[in-house]
């Protein structure tokens, strides 16, 4: 598997280099298009599907009865309505924190076991990234529809909005600093304008995503971690409330988008 992915990475790299000299308004567009036609993220979906139905953990149970918000075992369309409030945990949860809840409650993993190696590397696919890719893909073709019903959903959404505009750290950055205008780039990296309905919808609809530069699927938690890293802030806690709040805000803004996950990115 690492060999195959190494090959894909090489292809992606060639595309990127070829296009860096292209001088178009969006120098990466062709490379992305080439990747999207043959989505390497499907490998993660397949592996996630296998892991989902496999009996695992101390309780030797599959995840088939995990409730992602639409009832135990109902995956179709569940991701389209996440993050949302769950009564059993009394928390708003995104797909990842919910998945870990099920790994702990249904499969008997300890929390630490469940979140171990949550971010994959070039040499090691992460179980969570595979599972999230699979779960998200079960909402493909459906419309993002993150609910605002429970008080905690309102609270979480507003917290996400607050964080989106909150400037901090040695660079004085907030999310809005880089994601508040059209057609902006950090070096050659395109930055979606997340205050624009269409662009935020495109973002919400395409995570988790396969990243050519990393040769792996990244979940939203992982993507946010990388943003925060680049902002020179400390490591963003995995499954932290802050991470979930930002995702609530972004996905809710993306309501109406047709989900196509995993997406393919530079």
């Amino acid at each position: 598997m690492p060999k195959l992915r190494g090959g894909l990475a090489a292809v992606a790299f060639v595309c990127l280099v070829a296009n860096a000299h292209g001088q178009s308004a969006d120098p990466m567009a062709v490379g992305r298009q080439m990747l999207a036609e043959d989505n390497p993220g499907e490998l993660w979906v397949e592996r996630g599907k296998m892991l989902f139905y496999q009996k695992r953990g101390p309780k030797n149970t599959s995840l088939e009865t995990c409730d992602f918000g639409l009832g135990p075992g109902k995956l179709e369309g569940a991701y389209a309505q996440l993050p949302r409030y769950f009564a059993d945990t009394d928390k708003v949860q995104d797909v990842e924190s919910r998945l870990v809840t099920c790994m702990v409650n249904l499969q008997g993993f300890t929390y630490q076991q469940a979140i171990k190696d949550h971010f994959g590397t070039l040499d090691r696919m992460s179980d969570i990234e595979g599972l999230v890719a699979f779960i998200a893909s079960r909402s493909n073709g459906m419309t993002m529809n993150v609910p605002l019903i429970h008080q905690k959903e309102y609270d979480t959404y507003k917290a996400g909005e607050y964080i989106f505009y909150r400037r901090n750290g040695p660079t004085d950055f907030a999310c809005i600093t880089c994601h508040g205008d059209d057609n902006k780039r950090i070096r050659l990296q395109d930055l979606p304008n997340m205050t624009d309905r269409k662009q935020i919808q495109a973002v919400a609809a395409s995570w988790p995503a396969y990243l050519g530069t990393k040769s792996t699927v990244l979940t939203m938690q992982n993507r946010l971690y990388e943003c925060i890293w680049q902002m020179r802030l400390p490591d963003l806690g995995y499954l932290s409330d802050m991470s979930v709040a930002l995702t609530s805000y972004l996905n809710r803004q993306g309501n109406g988008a047709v989900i196509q996950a995993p997406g393919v990115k530079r």
Partner: protein
Amino acid sequence: MRKAWLAWTTVVAPVLVAAGCASYPDEATTRQTTEKMVGEAYSGVSPALRKRAVQDRSQQICSKIGNAKLTQQEAAEVAKLARASITYPASGKLVGDWKAGAKLAYSGAGQRIRGGKLEKAKENGALCSNCHVLDPKEVNAGNLGPSLTGFGAQRGNSEAAVKYTYEKIYNAWAYSPCSNMPRLGSSGHLTPEQISHVVAYLIDPASPVNKK
């Protein structure tokens, strides 16, 4: 019109809450709970690094939801704090070595944290090319900020131009409160000497920035 709407919502919102309908929390509540949330998100790292996520007064002012406009008073406060933060190289020389500045301008290194550990870098980069075009021959440059190609050719190298350039890099908010540009000197990301090199890279007629 807007006032009437506000009055209406302030009357109706509590009624809805009382009736058990969920609604958006007020600003003060959101601030309080979210600040706590941000603190907890970084609980895995040392207090020294965690401090980075704590806002100073200017950052607080500059964090308006929806990028709402600053009041005149707020803008004045941010500019005043920025101005007070600026220090100059001990040598008094605001224009350093443009070649050293070139290296700094294209470096995005420094200060990043992974796994609780601070990035090992010889020196912090000035991060310029992340957001600005500088040398017109260099393709790999961002566009979050305006192009700085020809910066010195346009402005000249008068004492006033040099001072403005130095101070703008040291703390951009002295000139444009809450602009997107990091306060590179005030935050300690760059030393006064490093900034003087970047000034030279922008101003010096021999610098690629000012070559056609």
